[in-house]
């Protein structure tokens, strides 16, 4: 089936044609069936249910990656009344999402075992969230984008409140839920106005409509504003970032790792589909909106992060500043800019996974999370390998050479310079230097300060340690060979 090209499929008779085309949806169907199986199995395995759920979830994700890789050379098709699109961007993002979620599960496992009341729902809700992200990755219609987003968000709200006895987690979950609901409302309002004007929910049709209209219809800008605000909320860009620090701090670290990695990939596709595939004609308008969001995110994210003493809160503000960089790539409105933003998002996910992975593998002996920055003092003396990985992540986030974070920032700046946004590039560099301060402070704590608290490591973490080391090596390896990944990112946007 893989070698069939699009012409020979179209020559097949009706029903068979449909069937062959819908093979591209196999991964999603398989994931749904796999998740439901895991759900049922976890009910009937009693005391072992957590182990079994973990193994089954990883097996499901491994199967997904296999199916998705097999689907890589399938032709690009549009299915289900043009609601589902299978294109290069969707193929790449889906594989990345599944791999990321598998890594998250592996990192989170020792931490969850160490919790007093750990339950199998972490993996089940995680798999459902993955399904939501895959739906978003190939959505070509307002309805499917919205449904995928809600499926993802619902799982995340419940995951934040995973530790039921923690007041912080409950507070974070309520904040996240209320703000998320408002954001969804804004997004839906924008979409409904857009539907009222263009008469279509389909992004491709909306683009065609926008190409053919004459004169300015101010209602379009109105709808666009609401859609951009909705997207900014989900990204966590300033001034719609209020939920990010509280949720990162309040949620258990395993869930913080989840929220800060895979959903960013999904949010990136959502932004690309809505703004570029659907409303490329309005580029002049959304460019200015993204510019404001990006500048504010860079400035506030980096400056407020300096004042944080809580490590998860600091990483939350650092996320906001990274989102600023992703938006800088997006706002150029042309293909190299999109590719650089995609590259940045992928590298950001790699860095965030590594940084939170280190935090997950450490524990204090009173079995609480690592939360204060000062907890990391003298980490080099107790755990030199984890110290090196943390240092690599921090160097990479700061954009230092010898780590891939340097290239991620470089490509975004390059796209800005190509498109004559010199002042934005200068501002981004200045803010990166400001940001370097708090990343280097972590390295100073780890290497140059005396041991304050002797941290323990989690038990049963062999696999997590192996993957984490690979994660650290990738940060350096991709610095040496960035071209393969960059070329792939460029080829995704034809």
């Amino acid at each position, binding site marked *: 089936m893989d070698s069939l090209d699009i012409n020979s499929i179209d020559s097949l008779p009706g029903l068979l044609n449909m069937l062959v085309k819908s093979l591209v949806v196999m991964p999603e169907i398989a994931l749904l069936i796999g998740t439901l199986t895991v759900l049922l199995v976890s009910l009937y395995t009693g005391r072992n249910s957590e182990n079994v759920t973990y193994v089954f979830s990883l097996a499901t994700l491994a199967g997904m990656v296999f199916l998705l890789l097999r689907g890589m050379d399938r032709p690009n098709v549009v299915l289900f009344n043009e609601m589902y699109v299978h294109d290069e961007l969707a193929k790449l993002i889906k594989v990345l999402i599944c791999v990321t979620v598998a890594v998250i599960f592996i990192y989170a496992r020792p931490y969850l075992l160490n919790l007093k009341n750990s339950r199998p729902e972490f993996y089940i809700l995680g798999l459902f969230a993955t399904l939501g992200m895959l739906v978003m990755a190939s959505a070509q219609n307002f309805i499917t984008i919205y449904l995928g987003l809600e499926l993802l968000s619902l*799982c995340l709200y*419940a995951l934040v409140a995973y530790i039921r006895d923690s007041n912080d987690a409950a507070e974070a979950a309520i904040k996240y839920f209320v703000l998320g609901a408002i954001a969804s409302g804004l997004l839906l309002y924008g979409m409904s106005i857009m539907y009222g*004007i263009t008469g279509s929910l389909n992004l491709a049709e909306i683009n065609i409509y926008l190409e053919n209209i004459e004169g300015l219809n101010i209602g379009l800008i109105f709808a666009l504003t609401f859609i951009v605000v909705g997207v900014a909320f989900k990204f966590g860009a300033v001034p719609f970032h209020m939920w990010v620090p509280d949720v990162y701090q309040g949620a258990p670290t395993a869930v913080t790792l989840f929220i800060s990695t895979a959903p960013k990939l999904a949010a990136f596709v959502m932004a690309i589909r809505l703004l570029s595939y659907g409303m490329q004609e309005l580029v002049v308008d959304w460019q200015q909106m993204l510019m404001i969001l990006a500048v504010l995110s860079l400035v506030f994210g980096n400056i407020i992060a300096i004042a944080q003493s809580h490590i998860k809160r600091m990483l939350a503000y650092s996320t906001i500043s990274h989102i600023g960089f992703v938006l800088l790539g997006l706002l150029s409105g042309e293909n190299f800019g999109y590719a650089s933003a995609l590259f940045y998002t992928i590298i950001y996910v790699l860095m965030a996974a590594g940084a939170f992975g280190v935090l997950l593998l450490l524990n204090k002996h009173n079995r609480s999370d690592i939360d204060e920055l000062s907890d990391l003092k003298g980490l080099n003396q107790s755990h030199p390998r984890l110290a090196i990985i943390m240092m690599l992540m921090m160097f990479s986030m700061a954009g230092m050479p010898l780590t891939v974070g340097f290239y991620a920032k470089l490509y975004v700046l390059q796209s800005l310079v190509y498109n004559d946004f010199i002042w934005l590039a200068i501002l981004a560099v200045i803010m990166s230097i400001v940001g370097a301060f708090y990343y280097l402070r972590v390295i100073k704590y780890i290497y140059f300060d005396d041991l304050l608290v002797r941290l323990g490591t989690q038990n049963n973490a062999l696999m997590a340690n192996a993957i984490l080391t690979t994660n650290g090596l990738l940060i350096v390896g991709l610095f040496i060979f960035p071209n393969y990944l960059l070329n792939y990112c460029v080829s995704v946007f034809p």
Partner: protein
Amino acid sequence: MLIQTTVFYFFSGILVLSALAMITVRNPVHAALFLVLAFFTSGALWLLLEAEFLGIALILVYVGAVMVLFLFVVMMLDINIAKMRAGYAKYLPVGLLVGAVMAAEMIIILSKSTFEHVQPNAKAADYSNTQELGKLLYTEYVYPFEIAGVILLVAIIAAITLTMRKRAASKQQSPHNQISVKRKDRVRLADLDRE
């Protein structure tokens, strides 16, 4: 046409008033009842648009199920109304001002923009709304329909995850123990001294 317009304004008026009453009345039970009225009148508006199925579904689902549940919750919770409304008078002017400005801006912008107005033709009397909806849901919209199903499943799982706890003190039936019980487990013969 005149009758239709009159009916529309009649129901719309009730809808707006009951929605306003819902957020301003003091008693939460009254607020829930006003919300029921709002749902009911919007159901009537849908009937006016010839969307019979949606109108009936709205009344059945929201009024019949969701709001009844809501009333139960409101009545069972001990809500301190005075405390919840403490900031109401203080924030009201600011809220009204911001709301009025935003509403005015939105009305100005939207009245200047053009919308596609396609007047649909009225359908024949024996036209089945439900059947047409069903056809659309299971053909053109089957993909989003299935995703919506998954979302509902996640909602169930999330609700159970957040609320179900096994407490050591809770009393539970164990059918297995109940049916395998023997006479000697329950009956004890005691020798009592005869008086």
